[in-house]
């Protein structure tokens, strides 16, 4: 084998091994389920999609059908004003369940619980934990969405979404978490 080809082969093997171990390490340390998206696509409405944990009375699992049920306050086709990292503002229409109504109806909050943090299944999470009072005072503006622009959010959902009016000093898109998997209460 030519030396040049040998070098290409060695470089490819090193890169391949690095990717494998870095991926495995990130899956373990960030608790990423490698089959999450496949389950999301092929799982029915009764598959658990969100877990609420942390400072809660009891860890609570939520399926998509429960999320859509009338047990919680449902918000239909509400326009959310969002702003991204470069200051560009735009509107998106979402439908979903109010976060506060879930916490309230299920009586989940533990003593002294004051913040919530959205965590995605892909290792991405919201920029900072937010005060629970924001969700309480703006129940229809802090949403766990399962529809966008009138269409079901197919494989990226559910998605957390917060209107600009609730957090005017923040980049709202940093709180729009796709593949929402965990809501951490602290």
């Amino acid at each position, binding site marked *: 084998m030519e030396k040049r080809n040998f070098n290409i082969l060695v470089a490819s093997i090193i890169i391949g091994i690095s990717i494998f171990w*870095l991926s495995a390490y990130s899956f373990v340390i960030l608790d990423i389920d490698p089959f999450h998206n496949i389950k999301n696509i092929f799982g029915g409405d009764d598959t658990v999609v969100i877990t609420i944990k942390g400072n809660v009375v009891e860890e609570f699992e939520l399926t998509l059908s429960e999320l859509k049920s009338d047990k919680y306050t449902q918000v239909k086709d509400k326009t959310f004003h969002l702003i991204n990292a470069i200051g560009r503002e735009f509107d998106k229409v979402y439908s979903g369940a109010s976060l506060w109504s879930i916490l309230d109806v299920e009586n989940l909050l533990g003593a002294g619980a004051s913040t919530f943090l959205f965590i995605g299944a*892909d290792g*991405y999470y919201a920029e900072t934990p937010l005060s629970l009072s924001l969700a309480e005072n703006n129940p229809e503006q802090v949403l766990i969405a399962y529809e966008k622009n009138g269409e079901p959010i197919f494989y990226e959902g559910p998605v957390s979404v917060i209107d600009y009016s609730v957090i005017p000093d923040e980049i709202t898109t940093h709180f729009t978490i796709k593949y929402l998997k965990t809501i951490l209460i602290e």
Partner: protein
Amino acid sequence: MKPNKNKININDTEESSEKIGGQDKYKTTGFGQLGSKKLTLLDLLYSTIIGVLGGIISSLIPFSLLIKVWYPSIGGTQLVSGHHVIWASIVYGLTRKKKTILLTMISKGLLEFLLGDPWGLIILLVNFMEGVCLVGGFLFMEKLGEGETKLGWGIAGGFGNFFQAPFFWIVNMRWRIHWTLWVLAFMFAYISGILIVGLLGRSVKNYLIKAGVPTTF
């Protein structure tokens, strides 16, 4: 009738569609300019038409779906990000002029901007910078004597596709994300550049020339 001095016989160049004596060989198709660096009308047409095509495809087709199903981490979609830059490498293959890389990327960026990209005018800058990096990659590979090899195109393509990943991650202030995901995203961007921009781009270019698309070098 005088022979057209501006025409070159591409059979005489090292490019070709068939391997003959270890050298690639193409049939005569071109609007050759005997190595002139001036842009021809055909160069401009290639750059704009393919740039516009790239802009439409980049904006409207969610290639990320190809990855998200089987690779769940954020940054995994960088594995297909090379499709944003392949257009420039195809045009470069047909024209062998580095200016056309920049023209193609600017056309593509303009289309993405006009189609309402969430990044606004910044998308134009990103496309331009990707073009600059691709030009830098090809120049670097030429210096190493790999300007027309698969290795050379692969590495140049990797350079071309690399810029956008750290740029978007930094602009998006993703500092809180675990370092492994940063490293993986950048590795995927480079690999996508090698495979899609470099190798696939070179192969598409070769098939286009084989099919009789006029070259301008």
